[in-house]
């Protein structure tokens, strides 16, 4: 059995699968609901084998996001620990009432009378050929909503750990996976204690600039840092992991050393979560800054399907590196 092994080299999607398996074993009241998650093993294979192993605790639903998110809320209020799969981030918009007006209100408004230990899994971002309705990065929308935790794992170990932490939490959580990373491999330690929610990870220390990123852009930021190193620029890379709650301390500690902040995300720039971090830095860490904060994100344009067009718009290792260079050269006119 895979779970007996301590560390394995597995794919991101397989790590999700192991996280779900762990949850169904750990919590008798855990349920999985979503479109094609049971008999078909999940549209991306996240739930592979789980229906076979756990039977009717893995439930295929009609293609009605409001209904199954709402139903998961109701079941959670009645003692269950549901895990919902929303196939694409874009489809959360069909269930926004349940996700924004219902779910995050219940614990607060009931004054603690009800808990809603519900985890929503979805995935986002562009992949070559993905259409404009299957490409959006909308984490900022949910980071704006108090009452729901929002995490974006950037590697297989985090896909496993962050999912488990979200499920174990008695609060609602949204785990936004990266479809582009589903096939990527990495070492995953399966038997380890639950990680606290909301901790960023310093992927790489640096002295000249702090690059904060999450999800798929972490890899791009690391590649940018490598390029910059060859040019004599030492860039720290932080994987923020959670946009709610935000680990400001980890960013602040790096900023104290570097004095420069660049934020890189795949989402559109305007009102992207980078704007929030930039605002935080100017409000709270102004005197640590040696220059303007810079953001790297997609321009405010819809996402075309053709890969060549997508690449023209999306942030990359090179555009991150270019922004870092410009930031370091920035001087008052």
């Amino acid at each position, binding site marked *: 059995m895979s779970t007996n092994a301590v560390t394995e080299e597995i794919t991101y999607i397989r790590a999700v699968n192991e996280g779900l398996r762990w949850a169904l074993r750990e919590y008798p009241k855990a349920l999985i609901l979503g479109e094609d998650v049971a008999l078909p093993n999940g549209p991306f294979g996240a739930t592979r084998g789980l229906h076979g192993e756990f039977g009717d605790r893995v439930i295929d639903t009609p293609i009605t996001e409001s*209904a199954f998110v*709402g*139903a998961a809320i*109701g*079941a959670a209020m009645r003692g269950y620990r549901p895990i919902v799969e929303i196939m694409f981030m874009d489809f959360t918009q069909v269930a926004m009432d349940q996700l924004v007006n*219902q779910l995050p209100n219940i614990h607060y408004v009931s004054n603690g009378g009800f808990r809603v230990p519900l985890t929503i899994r979805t995935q986002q971002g562009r992949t070559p050929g993905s259409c404009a309705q299957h490409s959006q990065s909308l984490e900022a929308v949910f980071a704006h909503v108090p009452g729901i935790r929002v995490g974006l794992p950037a590697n297989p170990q985090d896909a496993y750990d962050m999912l488990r932490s979200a499920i174990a939490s008695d609060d609602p959580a949204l785990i936004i996976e990266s479809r582009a990373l589903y096939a990527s491999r990495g070492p995953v330690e399966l038997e380890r204690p639950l990680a606290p929610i909301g901790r960023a990870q310093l992927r790489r220390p640096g002295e000249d600039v702090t690059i904060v990123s999450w999800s798929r852009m972490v890899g791009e930021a690391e590649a940018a840092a490598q390029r910059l190193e060859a040019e004599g620029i030492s860039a720290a890379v932080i994987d923020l992991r959670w946009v709610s709650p935000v680990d400001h301390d980890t960013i602040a500690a790096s900023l104290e050393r570097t004095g420069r902040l660049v934020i890189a995300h795949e989402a559109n720039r305007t009102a992207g979560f980078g704007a929030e971090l930039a605002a935080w830095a100017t409000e709270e860490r102004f005197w640590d800054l040696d220059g303007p904060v810079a953001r790297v994100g997609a321009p405010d344009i819809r996402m075309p399907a053709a890969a060549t067009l997508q690449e023209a718009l999306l942030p990359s290792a090179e555009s991150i590196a270019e922004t870092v260079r410009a930031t370091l050269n920035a001087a008052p006119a």
Partner: protein
Amino acid sequence: MDAPSLPETYRAILTIRRFEERLLSLHQEGLIQGSMHLCNGQEAIPVGACRELRADDALTATYRGHGWAIARGLPLPDLFAELMGRASPLCGGRGGSAYLCGAPYGFLGENSIVGAGVPIAAGAALAARRDGAGAVSLVSIGDGALNQGAVGEALNFAAALALPLVVVVENNIYSEMTPIKEMVAIDPLAQRAAGFGIPSVTVDGNDTAVVQAAVAEAVARARSGGGPTLVEAMTERLVGHYTGDAQQYRPAGEVEAAKTREPLTRLRAAAGQELGAELAVVDEEVEATIESAVQEAMGYPRPDPAGAALGVYVD
């Protein structure tokens, strides 16, 4: 279940009526702020339906939910206090008139988004079915709510999974302030359930016994694994959609006519001379109950402002 006596039914309905009338005077006195949605005239529906519910059943209502809360047994002082913005044991003042709940009473709460309670109630039904103890989930919505997408989604969800859900549609003939007959092309509304494979019935919602009988059948079906049922209960509200609604959209004489067939008028007529004296006693007792509940509610402190930021998360 045994049919309750006429005075008992009268007491249950009158309690809701007087509760809401008292809300209006408290509002005038400045002790309650904000608008409210009263169920004045519709009380027979929650009273009849809740008689079929067990303690382990789940109940979900709408912003027009005071009657459901009372019929479910939420204490009157707690409800008054919650509406007065005091630190009630229900939601500590966080719910208010339109979005209160009562976890210890299996009252998942009101909902101020039209139709949104039905998916949640379907989830409570899913939980009930998995628990295997024969519990059900009952949700009330308005006629207008039946046009919401979330309701259609949830009806299909409950039908497809054969969940123990009872949907009570309180048809007060207005979709907010527009006649429902102008907003749909079917009559009766309950027909819509057939498209989901859900059995339905349209009944007189101003007669508690009739409502109870219809809900009893629905609940029995749900408890025995027969899946959801939709009960359409015909009624009329005797007041505005919300407090402050001048009701210019209602034809002259409509409310007056409705008053001749509303639940309390009917019960008083049915009581005749003999029971009439008993009802007069009930009148006084309910009056006293309401007043003492108000007094008790006034004893609850205001919520501590320092606590306003607490409890967004469990952890």
